[in-house]
């Protein structure tokens, strides 16, 4: 009988791999393609040097006041001089360690959610995430820990944007999951309440919600109680965010095959065991890119808080721009700085999300 002999694998021909082949394939595959490539390269050569020159080579880096900005390039002195306010608002300098500690805690909790040993990771990180906002409020406010009280009027800058967004998503997360579950419920009352809630917060502009939070929400509180403006905005952000995330979760639920529910039922799990152990992990996995996109949207929307006079980073920048010592027109530098800070945070979040996706991807063979 004949023996079956597999043909050994050979490397691909040279002219189909490598950088030269890539360039030929992607940049110069036809006459038109080559012309477009050359035109784009010419534009880049023409425009990039002046931009680099403005931003770096002729920029002003040293100094503490506007007078230091003598060269024709960007006046980074402005950003440097105001960097404290941009980051921390008017939070007292001697208490700044509290904000920094909070940022470190946030980073630690994020890190722990991925690096802890697998058998305690889920439990430990869920607890850490739930405790974090409470610790944050206690630490930044101070009165519960016996520290000097820092009124929320003094909170501000980019760290306020970060904290508002983070504190909202943490609380909104379980709520939105419940809304999404409610929307799938068989019970008509629960389902209609969920639908009304979700559709209301998805269908209303976030700006009008902020106004409602600052103007109308106090009317609902008992007379004489004065609920902090930041807390009211926080509540609004939580509602807004949970409406959006509920829809994200709904998509995630739809992606889990009905066989998963049946298998969980057939081994006798109760409803909540089935949801928490089998369905939720799979829903989060498929929803993760959209959860992150929603979070990035919320994070950027926190700049709208300037409309109701909360000194987040853009509000702080506008204060700086109208300061009588800095009237030389530094809006470009200021906004570029805000762009850069937001962009780098959002981009690192996407990188992180891609890592989590890879880590959670158990479908592929190794």
């Amino acid at each position: 009988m004949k023996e079956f002999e597999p043909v050994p694998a050979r490397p691909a021909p040279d002219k189909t791999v490598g950088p030269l082949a890539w360039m030929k394939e992607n940049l110069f595959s036809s006459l038109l393609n080559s012309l477009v490539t050359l035109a784009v390269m010419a534009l880049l050569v023409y425009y990039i040097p002046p931009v680099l020159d403005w931003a770096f080579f002729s920029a002003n880096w040293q100094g503490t006041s506007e007078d230091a900005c003598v060269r024709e390039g960007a006046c980074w002195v402005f950003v440097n001089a105001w960097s404290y306010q941009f980051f921390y608002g008017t939070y007292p300098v001697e208490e700044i360690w509290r904000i920094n500690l909070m940022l470190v805690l946030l980073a630690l909790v994020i890190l722990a959610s991925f690096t802890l040993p697998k058998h305690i990771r889920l439990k430990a990180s869920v607890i850490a995430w739930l405790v974090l906002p409470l610790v944050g409020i206690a630490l930044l406010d101070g009165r519960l820990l016996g520290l000097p009280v820092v009124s929320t009027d003094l909170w501000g800058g980019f760290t306020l944007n970060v904290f508002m967004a983070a504190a909202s998503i943490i609380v909104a997360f379980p709520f939105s999951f419940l809304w999404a579950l409610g929307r799938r419920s068989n019970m008509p009352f629960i389902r209609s309440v969920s639908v009304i809630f979700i559709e209301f917060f998805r269908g209303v502009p976030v700006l009008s919600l902020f106004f409602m939070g600052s103007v109308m929400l106090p009317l609902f509180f008992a007379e004489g109680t004065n609920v902090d403006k930041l807390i009211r905005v926080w509540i609004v952000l939580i509602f807004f965010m949970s409406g959006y995330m509920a829809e994200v979760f709904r998509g995630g639920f739809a992606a889990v095959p009905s066989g998963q529910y049946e298998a969980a039922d057939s081994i006798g799990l109760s409803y909540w065991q089935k949801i928490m152990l089998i369905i939720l992990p799979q829903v989060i996995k498929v929803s993760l890119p959209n959860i992150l996109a929603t979070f990035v949207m919320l994070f950027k929307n926190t700049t709208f808080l300037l409309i109701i006079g909360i000194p987040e980073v853009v509000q702080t920048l506008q204060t700086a721009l109208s300061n009588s010592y800095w009237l030389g027109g530094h809006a470009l530098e200021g906004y570029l700085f805000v762009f850069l800070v937001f962009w780098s945070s959002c981009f690192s979040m996407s990188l992180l999300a891609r890592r989590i996706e890879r880590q959670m991807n158990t479908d592929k063979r190794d």
Partner: protein
Amino acid sequence: MSAAKPTADAEDVIVIENLNKWYGNFHVLRDINLRVKKGERIVICGPSGSGKSTTIRCINRLEEFQEGSLVVDGVEMIDDVKNIETIRKDVGMVFQHFNLFPHLTILENLTLGPIWVQKKPKAEAEATAMKYLERVKIPDQADKYPGQLSGGQQQRVAIARSLCMNPNIMLFDEPTSALDPEMIKEVLDVMVELAEEGMTMLCVTHEMGFAKKVADRVIFMDAGQIVEENEPNEFFNNPQNERTKLFLSQILNH
């Protein structure tokens, strides 16, 4: 023994009487009567849409029914969470598409039920799980994820997952229909072994070789009804109903 007789026999672990089910206005199961004795192996076959899967899915309440009664191991299937949970703990099920939990390792798939439903200590659950993985001949895959296994291996894991719950009755819903031909045998081998150990089994399948080898009774369904039931030799060699003859000629001579 006549199946229509309503007196309960102590040996009957499943008693289905006049079961009727509708999807909306569509009458899917019509007057199903079926008794299964302890240790009995039953194969259910029939064309697609005949209600065979729906029938066994009623037994652990993956499907509800509107009329008739169903008693499993002395517990009546009524609309009560306690009863449903009791029955589900007693009945294992294997699906056509395996339905393993993709986010858990093989070992975690097997220990989930024992730990959360039966409240067993983790070490004990893992020991049991390894015992069953050895029985289905894949103990070396314990730490992999379902997506890393072949279809045949996944189906054997699914069988082991059900066995870990220590069921008295096993339901199989077309367990080999989604498998490549080369993998069907490894799954059937496990099922034959299980049958030889005396497990009560209800199996929806078109593997007629399996039916001839292990079944005590073969049931043929069409249009939501039980058309014919008989012991395998009689069923295959001497079918009583024209519809059964036609079905058998179609699946056996191709």
